[in-house]
């Protein structure tokens, strides 16, 4: 018996998020309420499929053996899937509370990219694995769940802050440059993942799987492909820069969003920050019970602290220094970049105790 029903549902969820994203973008472009409702419907459907995927994976792990069964948040695939699930869940709640569908176009790509990335990355195992002894702890579960709830809140703050910068653009200044580059990079990551997906299907037929990310683009064995990738990257950034004003005009049609965006960005950070704090503390409790040290300055711990420091700076700047609007939005975006690095950069680039969660 193959234990991969969870993967089927995972795929359904991933494609749902892709379609939802397309519909959310169309909703912005055509301002048609029906399109918006379809987008929300697909999102809820995807969330349902994703929930089933996680539940089935949990069940399947117990089917594999009573000693293997565990809540599916222990390796990179499981925790990123859980993270994407949380993003969609919190986003759905925000959408309902604020009765505003305009954020969707900015949140769905984050979740979809996370899902696609863990699916395409050749060195991330998608299988259910038994837990090594140190990971069998309830503190670990609280640690992972609170951390990811926090990360998801920050992801939403990121999308909304980006939107804030776009809506409040008057001219092609430095802030304009900043957010067009951000959008360009997101598009570039999309292209890289698609290239990897194509490369993956090709190489499966040829001689097994690829070994690295970006083998279909920047790290291809064919020099021409590498060169072309850089040309494309520059082209995407240039197009993003050239079309930025069009994106702004598209969003400008939605009334009174500016203050609300600022508010949502702050609110989600105000929710994410306590969660991240609890995540770091429960991680420390867990480390103390497993290794006898609550804080060891390993890269993962340090990066979670860096993220915490950035958002702490955001809160101080906003609450006591009166930072609102653009400056706060930029800090929120930088905070989320630190979140991404805490999770992916550390696992893929730096070493440390958390290497059990690493690719491989």
């Amino acid at each position, binding site marked *: 018996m193959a234990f991969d029903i969870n993967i089927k549902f995972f795929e359904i969820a991933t494609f749902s998020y892709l379609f939802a994203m397309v519909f959310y973008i169309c909703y912005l472009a055509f301002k048609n309420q029906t399109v918006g409702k379809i987008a929300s419907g697909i999102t809820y459907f995807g969330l349902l499929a994703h929930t089933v995927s996680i539940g089935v994976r949990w069940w399947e792990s117990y089917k594999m053996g009573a000693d293997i069964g565990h809540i599916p948040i222990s390796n990179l695939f499981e925790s990123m899937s859980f993270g994407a699930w949380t993003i969609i869940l919190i986003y759905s709640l925000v959408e309902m509370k604020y009765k505003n569908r305009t954020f969707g176009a900015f949140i769905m790509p984050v979740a979809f990219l996370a899902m696609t990335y863990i699916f395409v990355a050749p060195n991330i195992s998608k299988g259910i694995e*038994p837990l*090594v002894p*140190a990971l069998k702890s309830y503190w670990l579960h609280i640690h992972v769940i609170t951390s990811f709830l926090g990360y998801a809140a920050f992801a939403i703050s990121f999308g909304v802050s980006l939107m804030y910068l776009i809506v409040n653009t008057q001219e092609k200044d430095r802030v304009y440059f900043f957010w067009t580059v951000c959008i360009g990079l997101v598009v570039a990551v999309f292209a890289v993942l698609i290239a990897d997906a194509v490369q993956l299907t090709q190489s499966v037929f040829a001689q097994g799987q690829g070994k690295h990310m970006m083998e279909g683009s920047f790290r291809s064995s064919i020099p021409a492909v590498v060169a072309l990738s850089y040309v494309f990257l520059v082209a995407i950034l240039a197009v993003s820069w050239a079309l930025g004003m069009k994106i702004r005009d598209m969003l400008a049609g939605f009334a009174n969003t500016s203050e609300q965006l600022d508010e949502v960005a702050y609110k989600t950070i105000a929710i994410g920050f306590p969660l991240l*704090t609890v995540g770091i503390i429960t991680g420390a*409790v867990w480390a103390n019970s497993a290794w006898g*040290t609550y804080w060891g300055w390993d890269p993962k711990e340090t990066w979670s602290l860096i993220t915490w420091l950035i958002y702490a*700076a955001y809160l101080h700047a906003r609450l006591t*220094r009166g930072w609102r609007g653009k400056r706060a939005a930029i800090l929120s975006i930088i905070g989320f970049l630190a979140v991404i690095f805490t999770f992916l950069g550390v696992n893929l680039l730096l070493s440390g105790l958390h290497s059990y969660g690493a690719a491989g």
Partner: protein
Amino acid sequence: MEEQKVTPKQVQKPGGGPLAAVWDFFASVKLTVILLIVLALVSVIGTVIDQTEPAKNLQMLAGMFGPANAQGALEFLVKSGLTNMYHSWWFVGLLSMLSANIFVCTIERLPRTIAIVTIRQEPLTDESLKSVNMKDEKRMKADASSVKEKAKAALKSMGYNPKEAEVDGEIHLYAEKGKLTRWGVYVVHASILVVFVGALIGSFWGYKAYVQIMEGQSVDAAQLTNKPLLRNLGDEVPLGFQVRCDKFELETYASGMPSGYYSTLTVIDGGKEVAHKRIRVNDPLDHKSIRFFQSSYGPAPGNAILILGISPKQGGEEKFIEVRQGGTVPLEGTPYFLNVGQVFANVVMGPEGPVVEGNEYEGSSGANVVILDKDKNVVETIAALQRFPSQEPKSVPFNIHIGDYKVGPGAKYYTGLQVTYDPGVWVVWIGCILMVLGILIAFFTSHKRVWIRIKPTDKSASTVTIAGSVNKNKYSFEADFKKLVEKVESH
């Protein structure tokens, strides 16, 4: 947003001149934001430069400055504290500045908060009505006293405990709740200082050590791996009691991967067996605040069969030979013999070579391999490893590494225990609990104030003015305020 005029008492500043300047420097929140961002930035350095083993940075440095300059660059890193930067004077200095910043800001702002919290709420005046967040006015066809009863009930149903007053024939009801929120931020800031104090206590008087106990044997001291700053203990810390390993058990998944390992330990204190526990990775034994963590294991001497890979230094095919621990075998093609000493399951590369200190994720199996001449005299001893490069023998033209090792059924093990003593850890946890509580109070509660003024216009009609103020979370207060207005003004 503060609608009440509050004149804080002047804070006593220490002296004048330079001291006052230092005080003012630390009293700024701008400094806080700068310190937080600087701490975030410098922390990045320590995640790029390996902090555990300085030598691990050689490869990266060789890539940056060329292999010839790598050693010099590493020495520079070590000297400037960058390979142990979280304990360097300048990082500790930044943390001290943050502490001073928190302390001074607290002293500066506390009087103002005390004034806000202790000031008595006054009935609504036309003057104060101008500065509230929300207001509503309506003429109602009801006499003042029935409106008052209704308003009182409405306030009580929403968790307020209203006070009453009559001013110039007008009836006043006013109430406030959630004053506690004003202290939230102080709790958070104090909690950070508490965590720092806990960490300092740990590094001054706490230690970390490692000890191996063979099954059936006991120890009364452990090798220090992290020495306390304010206690002179030498290399070995006496435990003050004895710990015996009664039994070691290893469980594996069907794949052979270890799924758990357990040591049954007995503490003998003052000649009596005082504690007994089967420990596993996440579940240590605790006696007199000294904790014993299951960290590694390995076969006891004479209980393992080692598979050694022998490869010619000039290149060529690798051959594998089996040696029982403690046993001696001839090294083919040379007049020498190999003897295998203790086998370790968890070896990592330290700055001066391999050390038995790792855990099951980063460690390698390792063994001391002794090279003997034909008269069985020791020529040299090398550390042979499985996952890291072994030490290169000088006397023979072969490299020797560990292919694997086997343990026969019924073989005896030793258990590797990490020993920690941290008297500050409880202080750290208290700080953490305070931090979470403080953040919850600061973010999710708010100081709400409401006023209701009822002005009788004639016998059966009155004008009701409802006002409300909140120090944060304005949007959720707006909904609350609307509900209050509806309840008071409904028929």
